[in-house]
């Protein structure tokens, strides 16, 4: 009896409150308010979303920025206020009937930026995205984009051949050419530049990297099939004023980088980024008389300017690079023509120049509405020789994109619409044959984004392009994100991709072989559908956060340019897909801070990638079915000391057959990388080792004794060539 009374007494105030609420005049049963921009002018925000937290019940503000919500709909006394171009906010409204909500604008290029979320696994993006932060970037052996993925499980980097040292990324088990590379969301290093593109972006240029799995947005064109890698370059406004990096390793390879950033007046800021790398030492650790990696020098300059004033933000960038590389036999003399010497060698000289501008204007008083123009030009030219085989190429490109972004009624429905034009001019010369093409591609795109402000985001986009050679190309894409709870997120991505292959450039490994390169027929554009989904669970265990992500993607090709090394051991045949070609990729990844300061990331990956070669559906060579990945990262408070260990396991890979050679499968192997760094106020010292176990593929080059003979092939690379590499370096920063 007593307890009952106590209970009643406790509930009484609540009941009383309810009674009062219920009897109050209608106006008081509502929460009314106004949403304004948190700027000097306090501009009312029209069409802002206001919703009760934990419900899907909400409204949007009217022309004066005012809103009204029924108190009866509340489950907690908190509202969530969001508005495009502003930071969303949760506000406690307990005991209030009228409030003014101030939202702070994001000063960013909203219509084009994939936000650089600092959390590695973003819960906000509609696509399955991961971020490599600048902190993650410092964990790997610096230097260039290829090394930046070392501590990430979603992207693999592999060496294409045993002579040129080119590195390629792979996503979902598909070649790097199916992944769209963008810098600051502008497609970059396309076409002929693909084989070496990872070497052309220095690690010190990069602020962070977004990895998007599956076909992303249609805004960036139709080319992405397996995903997108967006590299966010340093922001002139926010970069360190001085950043200097020096690196050296046990192969005697050196890297030097210098970034200088400054503000010029109140509206302008600029950053100048310089990079150079040099290897002069001919390394041959497997005693096959071939250099394990090419010697050479690269000079790379990037200058970026940013203008920002009120509603206008504009960025300009110029990049120029020159690179020369020499590979092949140790005794090869690059200054003597190949015909006059006995030793096999490869030579390449590359020049690239590119420039871009990205401007946006946000309508005053309407932060959800903006217009942006993105233009870019690029010139890429290389001359190369592989033994007696000469391969030269030139690509000149230009592109322009106009994007308009606005809302339909309120910010729950937004759209981006635009027009694009791309020009590409290719010329390639392979030994005696010259081929090339000129493409003009005007296009239009529309993307609609539905966001119910609580748990559902839908992005439906499509684009139509009018290709001057291949006719009309229609590209639909869909991304859906559903938050079952704030910590449980489901995503679905489906869409189409289209691209024109540059078979020789994209498979440069075949140049370093005695295989005859032949195209059986006129090659058609590649077309593929990609569908997949992911599940993300954030959790907390023992007060420390963790993330579990698993995803599955299926890519199927309507047409593909098939490189057939199976059918004829002496030939590399290109033809159009006749039959099926697909990739099934599964990944499960778990990240958890096991102890304070000790972060563990593990991943398992399964790939089933098959293509029809000469009527037979078989496994694509050199892709392991099973892979494991583990990364242990330790940091003392404030990152004064940091240590990292990354291990990878590669399962068996099928290989293409070669005459007089009994190796048809790779071996299972492990690689381990480690790095330790110590930070001071301005200095940071780091030292590390790659491939600690010193695992090397035996005889990566086939037929080394007769490089001009009929069995020479350096393209069968499935494992590390150089073995253990120890490195050390220093960074100096002035903020």
């Amino acid at each position: 009896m007593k307890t009952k009374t106590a209970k009643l007494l406790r509930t009484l105030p609540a009941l009383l409150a309810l009674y009062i609420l219920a009897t109050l005049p209608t106006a008081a049963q509502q929460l009314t308010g106004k949403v304004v921009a948190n700027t000097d002018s306090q501009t009312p925000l029209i069409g802002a979303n206001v919703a009760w937290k934990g419900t899907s019940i909400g409204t949007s503000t009217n022309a004066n920025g005012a809103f009204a919500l029924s108190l009866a709909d509340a489950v907690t006394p908190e509202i969530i206020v969001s508005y495009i171009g502003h930071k969303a906010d949760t506000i406690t409204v307990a005991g209030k009937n009228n409030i003014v909500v101030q939202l702070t604008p994001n000063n960013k290029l909203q219509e084009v930026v994939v936000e650089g979320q600092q959390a590695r696994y973003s819960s906000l993006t509609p696509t399955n995205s991961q971020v490599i932060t600048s902190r993650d970037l410092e964990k790997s052996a610096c230097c260039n984009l290829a090394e930046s993925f070392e501590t990430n499980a979603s992207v693999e980097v592999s060496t294409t051949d045993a002579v040129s040292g080119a590195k390629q990324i792979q996503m979902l088990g598909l070649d790097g050419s199916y992944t769209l590379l963008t810098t600051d969301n502008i497609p970059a290093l396309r076409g002929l530049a693909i084989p070496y593109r990872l070497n052309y972006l220095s690690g010190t240029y990069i602020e962070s990297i977004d990895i998007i799995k599956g076909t992303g947005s249609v805004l960036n064109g139709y080319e992405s099939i397996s995903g997108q890698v967006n590299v966010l370059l340093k922001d002139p406004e926010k970069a360190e004023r001085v950043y200097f990096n020096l690196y050296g390793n046990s192969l005697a390879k050196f890297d030097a980088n210098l970034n200088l950033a400054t503000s010029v007046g109140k509206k302008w800021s600029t950053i100048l980024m310089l990079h150079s790398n040099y290897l002069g030492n001919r390394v041959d650790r497997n005693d096959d008389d071939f250099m394990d990696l090419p010697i050479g020098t690269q000079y790379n300059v990037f200058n970026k300017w940013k203008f920002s004033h009120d509603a206008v933000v504009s960025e300009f960038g110029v990049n120029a690079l020159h690179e020369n590389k020499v590979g092949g036999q140790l005794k090869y003399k690059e200054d003597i023509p190949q015909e006059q010497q006995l030793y096999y060698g490869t030579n390449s000289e590359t020049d690239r120049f590119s420039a871009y501008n990205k401007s946006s204007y946000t309508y005053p008083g309407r932060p959800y509405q903006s217009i942006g123009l993105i233009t870019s030009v690029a010139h890429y030219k290389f001359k190369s020789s592989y033994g007696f085989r000469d391969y030269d190429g030139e690509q000149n490109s230009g592109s322009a994109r106009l994007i308009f972004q606005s809302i339909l009624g309120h910010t729950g429905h937004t759209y981006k619409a635009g027009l694009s034009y791309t020009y590409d001019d290719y010329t390639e010369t392979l030994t005696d044959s010259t081929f090339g093409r000129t493409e003009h591609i005007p296009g239009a795109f529309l993307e609609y984004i539905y966001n119910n402000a609580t748990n559902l985001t839908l992005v439906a986009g499509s684009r139509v392009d009018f290709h001057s050679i291949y006719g009309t190309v229609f590209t639909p894409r869909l991304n859906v994100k559903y938050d079952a709870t704030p910590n449980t997120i489901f995503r679905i991505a489906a869409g189409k991709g289209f691209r024109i292959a540059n078979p020789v450039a994209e498979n440069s490994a075949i140049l370093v072989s005695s295989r005859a390169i032949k195209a059986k027929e006129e090659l058609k554009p590649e077309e593929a559908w990609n569908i997949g989904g992911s599940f993300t669970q954030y959790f907390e265990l023992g007060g420390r956060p963790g993330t579990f992500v698993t995803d599955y993607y299926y890519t199927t090709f309507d047409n593909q340019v098939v490189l057939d090394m199976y059918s004829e051991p002496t030939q590399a045949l290109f033809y159009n897909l006749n039959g099926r070609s697909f990739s099934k990729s599964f990944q499960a990844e778990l990240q958890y801070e096991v102890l304070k300061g000790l972060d563990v990331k593990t991943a398992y990956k399964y790939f089933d990638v098959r293509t029809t070669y000469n009527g037979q559906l078989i496994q694509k060579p050199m892709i392991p079915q099973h892979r494991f990945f583990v990364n242990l990262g330790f940091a003392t408070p404030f990152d004064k000391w940091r240590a990292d260990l990354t291990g990878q396991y590669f399962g068996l890979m099928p290989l293409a057959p070669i005459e007089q050679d009994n190796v048809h499968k790779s071996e299972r192997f492990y690689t381990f990388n480690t790095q330790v760094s110590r930070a001071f106020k301005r200095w940071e010292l780091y030292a590390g080792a790659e491939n600690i176990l010193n695992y090397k593929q035996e005889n990566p080059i086939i037929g080394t004794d007769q490089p001009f003979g009929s069995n020479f092939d350096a393209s069968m690379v499935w494992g590390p060539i150089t073995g253990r590499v120890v490195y050390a370096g220093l960074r100096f920063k002035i903020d």
Partner: protein
Amino acid sequence: MKTLKSFLAVFTLFFICVGANAQTQPKNEQTLEVKTSAVCGMCKKSLEKAMAYEKGVKSSSLDVDSKVLTVVFDSRKTSPDNIRKAINETGYDADSKPASERAYKRLDDCCKKEAGAH
């Protein structure tokens, strides 16, 4: 197991020594309270990190609600002015001294004053 035990013993001893060491020289230790323009948990992280790299600073702690940063420092190695300057260079006001403009621009949006306390 035995090695683990001895390892632990050495470890504990080490910490006792460090602790004792710190206790023997408290006379140069000073505590400074600085009113800053920090507004959120992220500011707390970046300020305390910046302080950790300052010469002579032993420890620091920001109370987000009151915006007061408490810094314990060695008066032989640094001074209150140096500490305030370091706070400015991180992008925050320190008492009456305003933040360095460029450093302020570099802050994440949520750490800027306009964002208001949250």
